[in-house]
């Protein structure tokens, strides 16, 4: 579904990703783990077109997307939940959802489907996004991305700083989407949260993928976690 081959990318003169190669299939959840600064968020920004890959290719269903203008990437079915949520804080919940629906011609059916996943947002439609609680903000960030009816969903540390009940809700949402065939790249720092949803785990070190493991049969005391994530 989505492939990154030999990607180099960074910020101006600062090179961050070095020959990164990764792929995720339809209906698969790939968890990306790695220490702070490993380049996980940078990789997602390269996929969504916020930064340009200096070398390598990114393909979606066989089509090159790395050369596209940034605003055209999401139109091909990539939903993005940025680290720190990056909601439009001064806009209402309803308006944030509407922005998500822009690429879907504001389809009411999509909107209803997404709100059914997060009924709490329905009670907050007229409220400014920045006045929501942390958990509600994350629901909105995910809902906004789901409004694109993505084939590929990019989630950057969605559980960061949230209560256990929210973490469960996010896990259930990811599993629902997986059942619908969505390909998910989930950046996740918590070993237990990662193991509860992942099909595969990719460990990033210094801007490249150091190791990829199947999640089946893996336990939290597997040496890979200590090596690449450990405290």
């Amino acid at each position: 579904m989505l492939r990154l081959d030999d990607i180099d990318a960074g910020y101006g003169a600062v090179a961050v990703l070095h020959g990164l190669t990764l792929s995720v299939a339809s209906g698969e959840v790939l968890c990306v783990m790695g220490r702070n600064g490993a380049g996980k968020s940078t990789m997602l920004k390269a996929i969504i077109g916020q930064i340009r890959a200096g070398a390598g290719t990114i393909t979606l269903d066989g089509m090159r997307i790395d050369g596209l203008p940034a605003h055209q990437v999401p139109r091909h079915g990539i939903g993005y939940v940025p680290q720190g949520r990056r909601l439009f804080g001064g806009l209402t919940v309803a308006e944030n959802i509407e922005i998500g629906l822009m690429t879907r011609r504001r389809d009411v059916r999509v909107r209803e489907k997404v709100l059914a996943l997060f009924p709490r947002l329905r009670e907050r439609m007229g409220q400014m996004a920045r006045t929501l609680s942390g958990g509600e903000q994350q629901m909105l960030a995910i809902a906004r991305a789901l409004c694109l009816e993505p084939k590929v969903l990019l989630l950057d540390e969605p559980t960061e700083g949230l209560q256990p009940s929210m973490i469960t809700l996010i896990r259930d949402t990811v599993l629902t989407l997986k059942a619908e065939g969505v390909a998910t790249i989930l950046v996740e720092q918590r070993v237990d949260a990662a193991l509860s949803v992942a099909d595969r785990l990719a460990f990033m070190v210094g801007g490249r993928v150091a190791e990829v493991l199947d999640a089946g049969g893996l336990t939290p005391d597997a040496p890979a976690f200590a090596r690449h994530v450990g405290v």
Partner: protein
Amino acid sequence: MDFGPFLLLALMEGLVTAAVLALTASGLSLVFGIMRVVNVAHGAFFMLGAVLAWFVAEWLPGPPALAFAAALVFCPLVVGAIAAIADMAVLKRLNYEPEATIVATIGLLYILEQAALSLFGPDARPVEAPFSFRLQLPWFGYSGYKLAVVVAAALVLLGVWLILKHSRAGLLMRATQEDRDTARAFGINVDRVYAGVFAMGAGLAAIAAVLIVPISQAHYLMGGDPLLLSFIVVIIGGLGSLRGTLVAALLIGLSDGVISTFFAPTLAKIIATLVVALVLVFRPQGLFGKRAA
């Protein structure tokens, strides 16, 4: 004339100034609020609106009201188109770096003024008002056209507010203002939003100029005062806050009318400058602006 009617006259004059100023300054404020561009060429767009209105009035046969109505539609469109081209050809290539765009818009100001000088000449030229109806009050008569300017400005500002708050284009603008990278990640063509906002800002200055030109004549250097006053209004009201811009324009316009009438225009300018200094010292984000995060 007694004090009461005299004050009324001063306030009415002030209201006309305030209306035109609110239009001009809201364009500056919009461009800064959404694009973070300090547009030094804003006054030149204003001037261009007035100069083009003269050309329209000159070339279009028929009654002055018709030519004026044509100018009111045509000038903002042309000035907006020029602004959009300037945005795409210059500002976008500078990646909207704050310092670079200030220098670039100074250059644009110079180019537009020189172009107006070559095509329009150094003289001030009048444009006939669309109608010459006078409102007869018990104490004095007052230009019906000036009152129409106030109403027209209020309608345009209402339109701007409706566009920003209740239209799809306005939603795209506000989302882009909040976070342009994330806006792109949701399919918003930020380049097009920026070109549109820059055009709209310039178009507002042009509308203000077309409205004022039957009162004050067109001249290639007429953009200086509106630019300065717009900056004053926008600093007092808070850059990027439309409501602040309106309140500050009323404040500056009305006090300008009263002080100019009872004392001297120079005193009005001195006081406006003092207020700006006070705001900058005690409330740098402006009366209605948000503190920088």
